[in-house]
C-alpha cells in the first residue's frame, strides 16, 4: 500500500527523535573506543561518523529495549575490521613509542577521580597503565576494554566479539592475569615490592 508523503515524514520524525535519544548520547564512548582501536584521531572521527550513518540507516533493525550502546559498538567494530584490518598491527608487536605519543596527544585536562587505595597500583602512572593494556594481545585487550572501561555484560561482549560467553569469561581471566603481571612489573620499577608472600 502506498503511503503519502506526510505520513512518511511523520515516521521519519519519530525515528529521528528516537535516534537522538537512544544513539546520540553514546558519541563520547564510541569516540574513545575508536581512538583505542585506531590510535589516530582522524581515523577515529571517520569511524564514528560512518558508524552513526550506518546506525541511522539501519535503526529499524535495532532491537528496542536492548542496549543501544552495545549495538553501536558492534557496528563500529565491524566497520573498523572492514576498513583497517589489513593494516592492523601485528599481534605481539607493540610500538611503545607510538603508544606513548598517542597517549600524550589524547591526554587533555586530567581530572583524577578516586584512586585505588595505597597499594602498589598507586605508584603507577597513567601512561604505564595504558601501555600495559595496549601491550596485551588484541583478543584480551578487547574484552578488558569492553568490560572494565565500557561496562558491558558478558552476554553483550560475546555478541560483539562473536564468541561464546565462556570464551569471553576465560579471555577476561587470562587477560587480567597478564595485565596484572605487567602492572606489577611497572610497580617494581618504582621500587614497590609486589611480592605478597613475604
Amino acid at each position, binding site marked *: 500500500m502506498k503511503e503519502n508523503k506526510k505520513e512518511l515524514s511523520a515516521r521519519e520524525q519519530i525515528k529521528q527523535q528516537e535516534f537522538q535519544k537512544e544513539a546520540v548520547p553514546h558519541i563520547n564512548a564510541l*569516540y*574513545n573506543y575508536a581512538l583505542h582501536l585506531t590510535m589516530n584521531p582522524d581515523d577515529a572521527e571517520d569511524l564514528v561518523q560512518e558508524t552513526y550513518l550506518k546506525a*541511522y540507516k539501519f535503526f529499524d533493525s535495532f532491537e528496542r529495549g536492548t542496549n543501544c550502546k552495545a549495538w553501536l559498538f558492534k557496528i563500529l567494530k565491524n566497520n573498523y575490521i572492514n576498513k583497517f584490518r589489513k593494516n592492523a598491527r601485528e599481534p605481539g608487536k607493540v610500538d611503545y613509542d607510538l603508544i606513548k605519543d598517542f597517549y600524550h596527544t589524547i591526554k587533555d585536562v586530567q581530572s583524577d577521580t578516586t584512586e585505588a587505595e595505597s597499594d602498589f597500583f598507586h605508584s603507577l602512572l597513567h601512561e604505564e597503565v595504558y601501555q600495559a593494556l595496549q601491550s596485551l594481545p588484541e583478543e584480551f585487550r578487547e574484552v578488558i576494554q569492553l568490560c572494565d572501561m565500557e561496562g558491558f555484560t*558478558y552476554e553483550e561482549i560475546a555478541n560483539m566479539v562473536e564468541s561464546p560467553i565462556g570464551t569471553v569469561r576465560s579471555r577476561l581471566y587470562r587477560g*587480567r592475569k597478564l595485565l596484572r603481571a605487567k602492572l606489577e612489573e611497572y610497580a617494581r620499577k618504582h621500587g614497590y615490592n609486589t611480592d*605478597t608472600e613475604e
Partner: protein
Amino acid sequence: MNCNKATVLMSAAIDGELTEKEAEELSGHLADCPECRSEFQEAKNTKIIIRERIVRVKAPRNLVESIVRLTNVTG
C-alpha cells in the same frame, strides 16, 4: 574448592557474572582463606585501575555537531 579454582572464579565474580552456585562456592572459600581474600582484593583493584586511570576524551565538537545534524533532516 581449592585456591586454584577460586582464583579462576574471581575474575567473573568481580564482574558479577558467576552463577549462583559458583558465587556461593567462592564466598565459602574466601571466608576460610585469607590468601584468596587478599588476592580477590588485588583483582578488584586491577579492574578499578583500568576504569579510572585510562584517560577518557570528549569527542571533537565538529564530530558531535555533524552527527546531530545527520539526524536533524527536517521534512
